[in-house]
């Protein structure tokens, strides 16, 4: 046994979350809870207008914005939008990249060449610019945002998954299944996908954080879904309606904190989860 393997065996860990992942899970858990319980938690209807620019007080814990909407309620409902876009995008990205990588890694040959070529070309596209251009053309709305982000976001995951599928297909247990004539689809679902679990989960968490980051940028620029108030949208109004210049901290600070914290939460889950899946070495 080589020493390296020896050391690895010595350091073999049971599937256990490390501290960073627990923090990540806790942060994400809180936000999900807030999103689900939004109608219960929010003290006001986030669209109801009132007296503008009220400082944080007992009535309005986080004050009001330029048209007198309660910022705490906006923030709580914003959690829904921001999380929804992040998670939904991540699901699309994961499904697309998993499908492509299974096709290309399992069947190899022409399909693999085609998928790799598409991946390479997509990687060459300027992602944020393309996303913004697409949103400009499409009608603004949640769906356009999700589609525009997904369109370029799948390449990284697809690449990693493909190389892993290629490795797995060389393993004896897959070869045996193939030799006894097992249905390809069943082999993929029953034998390959479970072995990709760790990578898929960690990449999915990273995708959520990346999508939320892009969404925050887009809606900050006023390119998101106007009807829906995500955290980015709150920040957009705070910035463009002079909330920042006049230093209405209760207006611009909470969305910044929420966005950063949520993105960090998913990032911790993904980054340190990837470490566990041996994608990146130590942090």
């Amino acid at each position, binding site marked *: 046994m080589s*020493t390296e393997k020896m050391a690895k065996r010595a350091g073999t860990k049971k599937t256990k979350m490390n501290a960073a992942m627990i923090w990540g899970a806790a942060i994400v858990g809180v936000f999900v809870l807030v999103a689900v319980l939004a109608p219960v938690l929010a003290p006001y209807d986030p669209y109801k207008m009132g007296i503008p620019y009220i400082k944080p007080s007992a009535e309005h814990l986080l004050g009001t914005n330029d048209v007198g909407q309660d910022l705490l309620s906006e923030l709580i409902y914003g959690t829904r939008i921001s999380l929804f876009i992040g998670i939904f995008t991540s699901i699309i990205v994961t499904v697309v990249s998993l499908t492509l990588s299974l096709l290309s890694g399992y069947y190899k040959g022409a399909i693999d060449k085609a998928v790799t070529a598409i991946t*390479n070309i997509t990687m060459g596209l300027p992602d944020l610019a393309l996303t913004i*251009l697409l949103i*400009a*053309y499409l009608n603004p709305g949640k769906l356009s945002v999700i589609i525009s982000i997904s369109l370029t976001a799948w390449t990284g995951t697809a690449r990693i998954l493909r190389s892993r599928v290629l490795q797995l297909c060389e393993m004896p247990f897959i070869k045996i299944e193939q030799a006894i004539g097992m249905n390809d689809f069943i082999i993929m679902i029953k034998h390959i996908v479970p072995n990709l679990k760790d990578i898929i989960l960690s990449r999915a968490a990273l995708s959520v954080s990346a999508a939320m980051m892009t969404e*925050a*940028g887009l809606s900050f620029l006023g390119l998101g879904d106007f009807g829906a108030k995500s955290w980015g949208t709150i920040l957009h109004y705070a910035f463009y309606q002079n909330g920042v210049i006049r230093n209405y901290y209760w207006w611009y600070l909470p969305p910044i904190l929420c*966005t*950063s914290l949520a993105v*960090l939460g998913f990032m911790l889950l993904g980054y340190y989860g990837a470490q566990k899946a041996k994608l990146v070495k130590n942090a």
Partner: protein
Amino acid sequence: MLKRIIKKSVIAILTIYAIITISFLMVRFMPGDPLMHLVGQDRYYELLQDSPAELERIAQRYGLNDTLWDQYIHYMQSTVTLDFGIAYSNNQPVLDNVLYRAGWTLLLSVPTFIIGGLLGAVLGTIAGWKLGGTFDKVLTPVLLFLNTVPANCIGILFLVVFAFKLGWFPVNGMTSGGLSGLSKTADILWHGALPLTLLILFRTAGNFLLMKSNVSQIRDEEFITTAYSKGLSDNKVLFRHVVKNATLPFVTSLCMQLGGLLSGSMLIEVIFGWKGMGELFYSAVNTRDFPTAQLCFIISAVCIVAGNLLSDILIAAIDPRIKEGKFEY
């Protein structure tokens, strides 16, 4: 190696071709009148009101009544001859507008590329080499955080603290005007200080994490044990056997950053009112000035493709396994 370069160049050209075609198709197939996409929303409605005849003439010029194929040929012709139309905002050729703005963006992005690249590489190497040491433990969470948090969030905090509260830097813009020579240079630097600092911080964070992961991976390779077995000191192992190997994947990433020189700083430009290409792209999209937005997109895309091509060529020049064509990434 030559074969590889030719192959990669062909792929790059195909990618650019795909990008141009995508933007052609986008204009034709997105919801709304393609004519609106071609002249921009404001101008479209203005013309619709004042002189529908003029609008018809423009439709004729772009051949919107022709078959899709003829339109495509025509579109490719004007793209190749760099004819991207006239901007509605100032009646200048769109290309001139975009190029002028590109210069201002480079003023931010070139120093970011150089300083952020160097800082990230050096700090990342130290942290990766002494993995788990104090340096690593202190720096990694900070830079991981910087790498994670959206640029506009930290951007606004910087703006509030350093421009509004402390008043050390201007709130907005690129110059105070009415200056010349050295004082003008100093003035631009003063205006650019905040966005530049932010961009460098972000870039350093990204490069740091990348370099750290490279170095810490190589540190555990078998050939490092071999190197130690010859009696080399830690520093000699680092400089002779680790740095070159770790730089190899780093070069790829640097080249991609080179490709993003024009498109990477949009949010920061918008927040600090830096009238660069990112800001132009943003306001073009906002005012539905499609010709300008599209050209910004094409130029950014071409840069990125060129950056990727450069990285392929450089890697082939450095890595003997690829140079001799025995190994593919």
